[in-house]
């Protein structure tokens, strides 16, 4: 019987071993990334266990915030996020459309690109001071839900612009050319072919900013968030407690308050607040990823 011509030589065996080692090392490193997240979550759950009941979410803070739940800050964060996205998403998406579909390669466009990039890198405390100057003082909003939302909007704008541009550029140029050759205007082409097919990428970008807006403390610190605001326990007012001009409580701010500003708060409440905050962020991000996977599977080309 002749030797098997496909049998691996010594060199190939060595290469195969090296390949396996590389694969295992990289896989181990990747898995180790999950460890901190799991560890933090587990620690929080264990520490917050006594307060983890639905009433924690639904009750307002009581007894100078040493007891009760986190309803008021939760509602506050919810409204902050919604209003800031209502402001940032249309502006960001339309700016992304302009930059990707209309802007020519000239010095004005380059300046805009530079500005967007730099805005993305501004530290959040600087956003806070900008918010105080521009919205609280100059625009006369005073320290309010509106001013805080606008500050958050400015902070999330660059990422929305960038993810819109990426989503738009993933639509092949050949589609646009086919439409232009039939006499469609640029806007008709964008409205009928480009935007509908880029919407999945745009949505994921916007949703990711939800978790960021929910988690940031600095931008809302001086612009509208407060340590405590009385909120009704039941009824209509408990769902819409803050007017646009009112100061509000927020989850991220509340955690800071409990940890540093209030005496006598039990550990469980602090850990519980932290758990809710991180849980919210994780839930929103997971939803965004799931949405992206689902929309990608429905890709039309």
């Amino acid at each position: 019987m002749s030797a098997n011509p496909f049998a691996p030589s010594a060199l190939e065996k060595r290469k195969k071993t090296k390949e396996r080692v590389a694969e295992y090392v990289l896989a181990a490193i990747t898995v180790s990334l999950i460890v901190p997240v799991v560890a933090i979550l587990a620690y929080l759950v264990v520490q917050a266990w006594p307060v983890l009941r639905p009433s924690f979410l639904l009750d307002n803070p009581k007894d100078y915030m040493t007891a009760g739940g986190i309803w008021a800050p939760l509602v506050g964060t919810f409204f902050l996020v919604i209003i800031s996205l209502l402001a940032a998403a249309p502006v960001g998406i339309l700016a992304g459309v302009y930059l990707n579909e209309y802007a020519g390669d000239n010095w004005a466009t380059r300046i805009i690109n530079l500005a967007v990039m730099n805005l993305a890198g501004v530290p959040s405390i600087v956003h806070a001071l900008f918010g105080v100057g521009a919205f609280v003082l100059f625009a006369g909003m005073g320290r309010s839900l509106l001013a805080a939302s606008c500050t958050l909007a400015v902070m999330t704008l660059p990422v929305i612009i960038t993810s819109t541009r990426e989503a738009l550029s993933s639509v092949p140029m050949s589609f646009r050319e086919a439409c232009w050759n039939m006499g469609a205007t640029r806007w008709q082409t964008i409205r009928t072919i480009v935007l509908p097919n880029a919407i999945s990428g745009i949505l994921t970008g916007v949703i990711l900013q939800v978790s960021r807006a929910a988690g940031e403390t600095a931008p809302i610190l001086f612009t509208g968030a407060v340590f405590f605001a009385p909120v009704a326990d039941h009824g209509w007012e408990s769902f819409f407690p803050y007017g646009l001009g009112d100061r509000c409580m927020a989850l991220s701010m509340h955690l800071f308050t409990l940890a540093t500003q209030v005496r006598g708060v039990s550990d469980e409440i602090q850990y519980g607040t932290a758990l809710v905050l991180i849980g919210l962020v994780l839930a929103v991000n997971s939803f965004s990823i799931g949405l992206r996977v689902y929309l990608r599977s429905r890709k039309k080309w």
Partner: protein
Amino acid sequence: MTNIHIHFENVTVSYGAKRALEDVSLEIPEKQILGIIGPAGSGKTTLLKCINRTIDFVPGVKVCGRVLIDGEDIFRIRNVYELRRRVGMVFPLPVGLPLSVYENVAYGPRRAGLRDRHELDLIVEKCLRQAMLWDEVKDRMQMLGTKLSGGQQQRLTLARALSLQPEILCLDEFSIAIDPVTTMRIEDILRELKNEMTIVLVTNLVQQARRLADRTAFFSASRLIEVGETETIFTKASNRLTERYVTGDVG
């Protein structure tokens, strides 16, 4: 005496330092097929882009000279979208828009303002029949255009180009990405269509020009070298370069 439909008058097109077309003067008679042959980079696609002014989309482009359609300088007209509706274009690579087959063909008329469903139905059927695609898709009109085969997508592109009843049909190397059978079918379609519209056919398949074109123009290095009746170009070309190209000696 046939009318001259399209007239290039000393047209020079440049992007930056590069010259895509150099002092081209060409008359294209109506309701005929003009074949345009020549090696790659000789300016053939640029010529087509001038006819429907999609050359405008090239950044930094400069066009000198005049392009007249029915005597009108198309670089001076106000509504360029109307011009693009009068000129149908088929590209080398088949493009199916990510819409249903029906919406693909209805796209042009809809953007032009047509809303009546019944009229759109008629146009869609007529154009799909003209493009010899009707039998294959009539039961699958809601299928995505991008899911058709290459040959079907190219015929879909042709149907889209015909949907606005253009006076001029431009084809840019339409057969390079499709099978020979579909190519033959489209060539038959073009022979029929030339009774209704002027056809400008850019091709790098010299024999295709010989089969289809009434007149043929030979381009090389951004210049028009020679133009004339197809048989003359292929048998008694006056320019040595033309002769060498059509016999396969160069290019």
